[in-house]
Each structure stands twice: as C-alpha cells, then as structure tokens.
C-alpha cells in the first residue's frame, strides 16, 4: 500500500492557518477554515437536532445509522487508507472517529438506549463544541470514500460525511463558496455556478469553433438549442471558461461520428454541489438537468468530463426524475469509447509520445462505473502509457474531492494535506501528462503539481483525443441535424 509521510510542523501550520477574521469567528461562534455566510447562532444544538430529525424522517439514512451503531468494530483499518490522516497523523482525522462524531449524536438523541442512558446520567447532550468539531471534521474529509472499501464491517464513512454536512447546512454551516454558486445556479439570472450569461456562452462556443477550424481545418460545430437530438450535453460549466480543449475534443468526436447532440441555453451546467452539502440542493439541480433535456426533447443526458456531475446525474436522475422511466444518463467517456469500438473514430498514434498516466476520479471509479474504457482509449494512441498504483476503484483521491476544491481559502490544506499522497503517487509514476477526466480533479491536480513543484501537465481525456483524432474528410460523417428548431 502506498503511504506518505506525515507533514512537517511548518507544513501543518501552513495547511491549517485560517484566513477567517477573528471577529467573524466570534460572531459565528465557530472556528473553521472555510468562509460561511452569517447564520443564526442561537440554540444551535437544538436546531441541529431538529434538522437531524427532519432529515431522518424524510430519508433512508436511519436504517444505515442503526446498522452502523450496532456493529462498528473500531478496527482502524480505515486510518491507514485515509490520505488526510496519513498526512496529518492527527487521530481526529481517522474516518471512523469522524463517523463516530455523528453516530454518537444519533445514539444519544435518537435511540431508546441512548435516551435512557442520557436521562440516567444526565450527560451526553449535543453541545456547541461538538458542532464545532463536526463543522471542521466533515470538511477536512474529501468524501472520496476510499476508506469505505477498507472497512471490514462495511461502514460507509462517506455516507456519514455526506449526511453530517447536510445536517450542518440546514443550520447554516456550509462553505460559502458552494452555497453562493448553488444560489446562482438555482435562483440567479444566469442559472449556472460560474455565472456565465447565455450570450457569453454563445461567444465562447463560436470562438472555439473558429479555433478548431484553424487547428484542424475542419468545420466543427457546437450545436446550441437543437431539439430532438440523441444527446443533450451538460459539462461542468467551468469547462466553458477553463477547459476549452476538453470541449473541443468532445465536439471533434461528435463531428467524426455524426451523431446529434446539443447544448441547451435554458440550462447548461452539470455541476451539482448539492452532492457535497445538501440533498435538497442535489434534488433541485438534478431536476433542472432533467427539465432542460425534456425541453429540448433529447433522448439521453450526456455529462461531460466531471466526476461529481456524472455521479449526481447517473445515480440521482432516476431517484428524483422518474425511476425506471427516467432519461438515460451517460458520461462522455462511455460515448467516446462506444463509438471508437464501433470503428467510428481514428487516432494518430504518433502525436502523444510523452509518458501518460490516468487518474481515476473517485465519483466515477469507486463504484466500478467507468474504469477500463478511458484506459483502453488512451492505450490506443499513447505510446507511453503508465499506471499509477493503487488505481481503479482503489484510486487515491486528488485531495480536492467532496467540493473542497471549490473552497479557494483552503488551497494550502488541499495541496499540503489532502493531495499529499496523490502528489507522491504522481512523482512515483514519473508521468509528464496526467489525464484526469473531471473538472474538480483537474483544478485540484493543477494546483497540487504547482504547489508541490511537480513537473507534470494535467489534462482531460478529450484534450488528448482532440490532439490525436484524425479527420479523414471523405470518411467524416455529415453531422446529423434532426428536424427541429435551431
């Protein structure tokens, strides 16, 4: 098992220094490292318990909590797996300890035994101090769920982190970065987390089309608002600002296959921070994706290179939008692999000669969803492909998972603590190109290689596909434009 050394005291200080002002900490009665919008600090334990009760009433978490409190064996195998604990060496970062923070509240306030014991001893009440500890601990975790694979009892610590953050968010404790973005996405004028207005989106796509024509000498379109297409496309919206090559690679694949696809101007953001802090927001965002696809009468929901966007759509569109009748969701890697296997894509095997490694995004690989497909694609045109170990479902988190990558004020923590093990793994692999098909992983890994001074370029899978794809004009299929408004 790959292990990393504990960080030095200087690094520890750097990672855990908070930029929050002292008066804000005092006003919010909370000492954490991420910014939070002001919230009601009165009767916080009481409101936490009310939120906990409401969530338990309308969810399936209770069953899991009952299961966990009956059988947790405290073997601490999760400790050695957790990249955060390995880096800090602080036992409070042991996944099982973090889980126990919430389980103890559940046991004390929501089980007969706990209530009786509490009454008899007059102790164990939820306190502000415990809420403080949870607020810190649940956001130290990158929700990568690697520890869950190592738990012999099968306890899903990621589920507990997810629930803990949800309850905290109901009493106002959630990173401002995520809340503000989600507010813009759900209630703002632009309707997306990066606040990109539709005219700016159209300009960007036109610009990319021009770029592609210059580079490939082929007219490649980004279809907008086309109805009745096979695929309605939802990338992480930040890709429109930061991942031009990934988008161009995706457009190039569709050009080569001729399949119909579109981006809708009604809603075009795959990002779903609800997965990281609130099931209520998760539901609202997922419904927007579904509604836009239905507005455009699309047949499939196509998610771009983004781990959490893919997981939110794949697993929660059926949950919130119709069960077995819900629209099919596929990730762009699945599509590209399928058409490549059908012989509809051609790659130049001499373009990418550098040492290339693939990083499995936790939200895609942990459940063994898409693992071999991107590898096969890369091996088809990368002369020098190497594996990082451990990999696939056992991959190591980039260090920015669970929404932490979007919290800029904790960058030192992410690149010193969260990503330390990943940095060691990248160094060990010796790769000069690291492929990460996830917007969050890409941002985190770029900051990680910069801060850890690793000579490695971080790209998306379709960035390389864009480089390697060959357009044989005689064979390029004319892109299908189904009947409908354009």
């Amino acid at each position: 098992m790959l292990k990393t050394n504990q960080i030095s005291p200087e690094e520890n200080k750097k990672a855990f220094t908070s930029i929050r002002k002292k008066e804000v900490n005092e006003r919010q009665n909370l000492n954490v490292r991420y910014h939070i919008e002001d919230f009601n600090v009165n009767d916080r334990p009481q409101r936490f318990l009310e939120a906990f009760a409401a969530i338990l009433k309308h969810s399936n978490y209770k069953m899991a909590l009952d299961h966990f409190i009956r059988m947790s064996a405290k073997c601490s195998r999760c400790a050695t797996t957790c990249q955060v604990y390995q880096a800090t060496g602080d036992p409070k970062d042991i996944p099982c300890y973090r889980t126990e923070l919430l389980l103890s509240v559940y046991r004390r306030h929501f089980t007969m035994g706990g209530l009786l014991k509490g009454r008899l001893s007059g102790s164990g009440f939820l306190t502000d101090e415990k809420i403080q500890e949870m607020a810190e601990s649940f956001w130290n975790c990158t929700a990568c769920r690697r520890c869950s694979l190592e738990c012999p009892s099968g306890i899903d610590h990621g589920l507990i982190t997810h629930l803990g953050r949800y309850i905290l968010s109901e009493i106002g404790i959630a990173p401002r970065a995520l809340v503000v973005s989600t507010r813009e996405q759900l209630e703002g004028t632009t309707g997306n987390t990066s606040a990109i207005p539709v005219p700016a989106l159209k300009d960007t796509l036109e610009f990319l089309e021009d770029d592609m024509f210059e580079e490939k000498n082929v007219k490649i379109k980004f279809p907008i608002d086309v109805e009745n297409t096979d695929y309605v496309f939802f990338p992480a919206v930040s890709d429109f600002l930061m991942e031009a090559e990934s988008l161009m690679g995706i457009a190039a694949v569709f050009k080569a296959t001729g399949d119909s696809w579109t981006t809708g101007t009604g809603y075009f953001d795959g990002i779903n921070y609800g997965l990281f802090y609130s099931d209520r927001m998760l539901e609202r965002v997922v419904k927007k994706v579904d509604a836009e696809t239905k507005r455009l009468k699309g047949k499939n929901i196509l998610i771009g290179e983004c781990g959490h966007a893919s997981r939110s759509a794949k697993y929660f569109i059926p949950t919130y939008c119709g069960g077995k009748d819900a629209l099919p969701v596929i990730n762009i890697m699945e599509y590209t692999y399928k058409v490549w296997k059908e012989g509809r894509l051609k790659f130049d095997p001499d373009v990418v000669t550098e040492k290339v490694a693939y990083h499995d995004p936790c939200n895609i690989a942990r459940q063994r969803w898409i693992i071999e497909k991107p590898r096969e694609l890369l091996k088809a045109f990368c002369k020098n492909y190497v594996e990082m170990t451990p990999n696939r479902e056992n991959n190591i988190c980039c260090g920015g998972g669970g929404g932490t990558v979007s919290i800029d004020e904790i960058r030192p923590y992410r690149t010193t603590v969260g990503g330390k093990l990943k940095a060691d793994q990248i160094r060990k692999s010796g790769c000069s190109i690291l492929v990460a098909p996830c917007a969050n992983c890409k941002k985190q890994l770029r900051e990680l290689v910069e801060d850890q001074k690793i000579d490695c370029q971080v790209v998306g899978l379709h960035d390389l596909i864009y480089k390697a794809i060959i357009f044989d004009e005689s064979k390029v299929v004319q892109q299908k434009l189904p009947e409908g408004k354009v």
Partner: protein
Amino acid sequence: MEDLLKLLTGPVFRLCFAIMLLGLLRIFFLDIWSAYSAYRKAGDKTMPWKLIFSRSMEWIFPAKRIAHNRPFYSVFSVLFHIGLLIVPLFLFAHVQLWKESLGFGWITLPYQWAYILTISTIVFAVALFIGRLLNKSSSFISRKQDYLWPLILLVPFVTGFVCAHLSVNPKIYQSFMLMHVLSADLIFILIPFTKIAHCVLMPLSQFVCTIAWKFPPETDDAVCSTLNKKGAKV
C-alpha cells in the same frame, strides 16, 4: 458443584443461547425490514447486485483484502475469527453436549486441530488486544468494549484448554469448568447487544449502504415543510 455445572450447561445455557439467537434474529430481521422499507421509498430501485455480492464476499472471505493494509493485524484477526468460530462449534465435547440436548450431532474436530486452534485463538486474541493498545490510531478510537471483548473471549478458551489438555485435580478442574461455562453463557447474552452483532450484520453491510444511497424522491419539499423553510432562499 456438579449440580451447578449441570444447571449452567443445561437450562441456563439454553436460556442464554435462546437470548443470543432471538437477539440476533431480531436485529438481523430488523435490518432486512428497514432495508426493504427504505428500498420501497427509494426513487431509484435499480440495485447493483453483482457489486454488492462481490464486495460482500470480499469481506466474508477476505483473502484479497487483508494483505495490503495493516497486514499483521488483519491476518491475526482472520485467524482469530477462524478459531473463534470453529472451536466452539466443532469441538468433540461441545458436539456431544449438543447431541445430548438436540438428539443429533455433527462432524467434530480432530484432537490435534482442536489443540492448535485453541492455542492460536488464545495467542491471536492476546496479540489483537496488545495491537489495539499499542497502535496509535486503534487506541484513539477504541471504546471500553473494544478492549474488553478479546479478554472476555479469552476466558472460555483458556479455561477450556486447561480442562481439556492439562491434568489438574478434580476440584481445580471443576472451578475452571465453571468459569468456562459461565463465561460462555455471558458471551451468548452479550453478543446481540454489543459490536459482536457484526457476526450476523456484517454480510448485510454492502446491501444496507447501497440502499442508504437510494434516496426517496421529493424530499426537498418534505424537509422544508418539517423545518418551516418553505420558500426560503438557497
């Protein structure tokens, strides 16, 4: 003393065993029932059965999983569990007792294997106790019961070993046998109410966790109503 032993291996044993059995059945079926109720509420009812099965099997027979993470602790733990399950169930003397009360028996452990497994279980129980005590992360998260269980489990194994393999005078034999039977009865009672419940719950974990991620639909409205947050901004 003999009468007391008879009482403890007879009616008291049956009572303790019944408590354990009923307790375990209760939590097992409560788990299944809760999971089924949750499944009925879930918006997405597709289940990755293959993944659930393979991950469950990986932990029921953990050969694939143990070596790469805390290898000594993990291997000791597996060997400890093997002895813990096999010796009480297949020891010749135990099967004879079952035969007396149930009217039928089953295959028994050869003498040498019983000897080796008893010793190994004692050794690994001590090793696991020391491991928990000395390992920084284990000791930090351990509760009282985590330290107590290896020690409690040691009692019937040590006393049973003394009775079966060491020549001691009848009075000492009976004292050890009394401790052996008493500790076994106590263990039976404690099993359903402590972490040892994992003996029946652990195979359900992957199934339970999968369903826990299957959320019910329309919970946004429901939670908002309960918390009086209807119409509240994001």
